[in-house]
């Protein structure tokens, strides 16, 4: 045989069997110990968890005073969270100064809201149009009549006595319900070919988006009474509602404008060629598609709106955050961890609402995306 250098003469030793590519060990190797640097990162992360979790556990659970405990238990040295304080003041955090004998009214509002909202969010339940009408138009009226009283033999309860989570939810609800139609109008105005209408909408949107909400609230609470005819007083809560609504409608308008821009010209032209007028064209053809595109953005706006309602506490309205803040001055429950426990409780409440909204928006996004999935 000729000496052909590129042909092997001896067998190559067989390689060891590949290490496991599935199962727990393989998962560990791939996700935690892929390389030296990776192992170091894992160690740092693990060290952090070992450092952070035991103190947190003992603060919130281990050394904490459970609901039903006493103040004396909360005043012990190096005690954990004082859940007893939350349990004792929880009615204040939910209803504010609402008269105790009338608690059934906010409770009815909560129940009715849940009853209307859940079928609205559940895609498989029919009668969406009726449901939306009930929730967005009838429900707010019912809420106002029921909470404010003075009609149907209900004892009047002025808005100064509303408070806590109730007010936070009311401000968010009113902000959401009013800002969508206003936002749609502003967005359409900004897209308009009529120069005066366009300029007015651009000015309105850019002005509100440029300034912080706190100055808007100050403006609403200080300047709104100045702008009203003499002798006409505007309710404090209403002032805040006006501020929050104007502010969030500007943000809503920008989100909806994004949706409108994503709709091809052909859709507008097709509508026009069918002989539809402007409002029919927008209402039947453009807006249904545009709004579907921007549902995630709209929900994100709802989340920021819900978080921003906490700012009304600066202009003296007793929302959830302000009731918590006010309760930290409660000397009956004065304890080293009183303030921290209050803040953690408030944070948990806000977190649950915001996180569920963001999860729902993700779910909706996936559901509506089916047409484009590969």
């Amino acid at each position, binding site marked *: 045989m000729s000496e052909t250098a590129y042909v092997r003469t001896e067998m190559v030793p067989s390689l060891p069997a590949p290490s496991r590519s599935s199962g727990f060990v393989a998962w560990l190797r791939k996700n*935690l110990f892929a390389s030296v640097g990776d192992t170091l990162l894992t160690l740092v992360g693990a060290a952090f*968890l070992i450092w952070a979790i035991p103190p947190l556990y003992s603060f919130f659970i281990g050394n904490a005073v459970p609901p039903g405990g006493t103040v004396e238990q909360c005043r012990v040295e190096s005690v954990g969270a004082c859940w007893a304080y939350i349990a004792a003041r929880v009615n204040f955090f939910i209803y504010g100064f609402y008269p105790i004998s009338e608690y059934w009214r906010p409770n009815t509002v909560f129940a009715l809201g849940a009853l209307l909202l859940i079928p609205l969010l559940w895609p498989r339940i029919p009668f969406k149009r009726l449901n939306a009408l009930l929730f967005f138009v009838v429900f707010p009226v019912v809420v106002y009549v029921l909470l404010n009283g003075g009609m149907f033999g209900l004892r009047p309860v002025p808005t100064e006595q509303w408070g806590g989570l109730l007010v936070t939810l009311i401000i968010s609800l009113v902000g959401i319900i009013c800002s969508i139609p206003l936002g749609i109008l502003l967005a359409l105005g900004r897209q308009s*070919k*009529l120069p005066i209408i366009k300029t007015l909408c651009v000015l309105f949107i850019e002005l509100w988006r*440029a*300034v912080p909400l706190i*100055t808007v609230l100050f403006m609403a609470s200080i300047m709104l009474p100045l*702008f009203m005819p003499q002798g006409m007083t505007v309710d404090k809560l209403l002032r805040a509602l006006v501020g929050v609504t104007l502010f969030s409608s500007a943000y809503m308008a920008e989100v909806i404008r994004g949706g409108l821009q994503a709709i091809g010209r052909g859709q507008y032209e097709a509508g026009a060629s069918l002989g539809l007028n402007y409002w029919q064209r927008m209402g039947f053809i453009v807006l249904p598609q545009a709004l579907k595109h921007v549902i995630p953005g709209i929900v994100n706006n709802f989340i920021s709106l819900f978080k921003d309602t906490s700012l009304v506490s600066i202009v003296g309205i007793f929302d959830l955050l302000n009731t918590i803040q006010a309760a930290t001055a409660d000397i009956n429950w004065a304890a080293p961890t009183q303030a921290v426990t209050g*803040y953690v409780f408030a944070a948990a409440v806000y*977190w649950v609402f915001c996180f569920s909204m963001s999860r729902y928006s993700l779910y909706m996004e996936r559901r509506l995306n089916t047409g484009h999935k590969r």
Partner: protein
Amino acid sequence: MAAIETERQEPPRPAFYNDPVVRGLFYQFVVGALVIAFIFWIVQNAAVNLAAQNKTTGFDFLWKTAGFGISFSLFPFDRTSFYWEAFLVGLTNTLLVAVIGVILATLLGFTIGIARLSSNWIIARLATVYIETIRNIPLLLQLFFWYFAVLKAMPAVRDSLALPFDMFINQRGLYVPKPLPDEQFFWVYIALALALAASVMISRWAKRQLEATGQRFPVFIVSAAIIVGLTAVVWIVSGASMDFDPPVLNRFNFRGGIELPPEFVALAFGLVIYTAAFIAETVRGGILAVSHGQTEAAQSLGLKDGDRLRLVIVPQAMRVIIPPLTSQYLNLTKNSSLGAAIGYPELVNVFTGTTLNQTGRAIEVIALTMAVYLTFSLTTSAVMNWYNARVALVER
């Protein structure tokens, strides 16, 4: 078959009240008239109300003595200063916390955004937990937490907690060493500026060189060498010296160093923690927006990992990241107004709070405050439009 004679006809003209142009003018006239009437109405109401309260209007109050003190200011301010000086103090305090917040939030946000994309399970999970927790809790609540529950619960001055680098923290705030550059340090600043200019020029030259000849030039190492080397040489040659004046605990308080009040520390900390979560999401979104095909294309061209990131992935990701990043910076600046709620003397606190209460000039004060934020916002969007035009995809 005879051709049908058709005559081209003018389309029938609609009645004038159906003409879109006329209708457009009419609608605009109606809306314009309503808006003007509304403005007229509120101005009139305001005038009547102000007259009834015996209040005057105008910006002349800015040149009156303020008569209140401000706990934290970058330049001297006391009770005899004017209202316009109070305005400036508020403005500079807002800018101070905004600039520090932007720098730190960018660093933290990029770190966490990249960590969330890490292939390391534990690191990615930690980053996710951080982002999902912080983003869903109102900033004001977080500020209350940092200020009332953390900083106010710090030990008293006598038992201050010692931090690394001669820093101390207690109820009255954070104490950091104060750098004391001597007069010769002027030359070091000049050397640093020169070195920075030189490295910018080198990187431009290297880019041209690369495009013209394909020759690579180690820009980063050379620039780093110039910046560090030149500065160090000048520092030694000029005999400049940098001393630090560390805070030292006396009987009752600290002496020396820089005292940062707890309001400032809480606000800066809260803003950084909160904004970093949003920046992290922006960064993650930007990196995920670069399609995997780009990575594969770069690999098939034979680019090394570092070059792939530097030349292909990062420039495309930055195009997606920068616009929302700027709006986060703007949000941070606007959110710094929440410092008013914890007593940090920024614009809203000093001006819309104290000044408004003392002078009663509600309209002027709020208009001026809004004008400041409007200026920030318009400047940012102008810069953004310029940047977008520069980096926009050039398509055929």
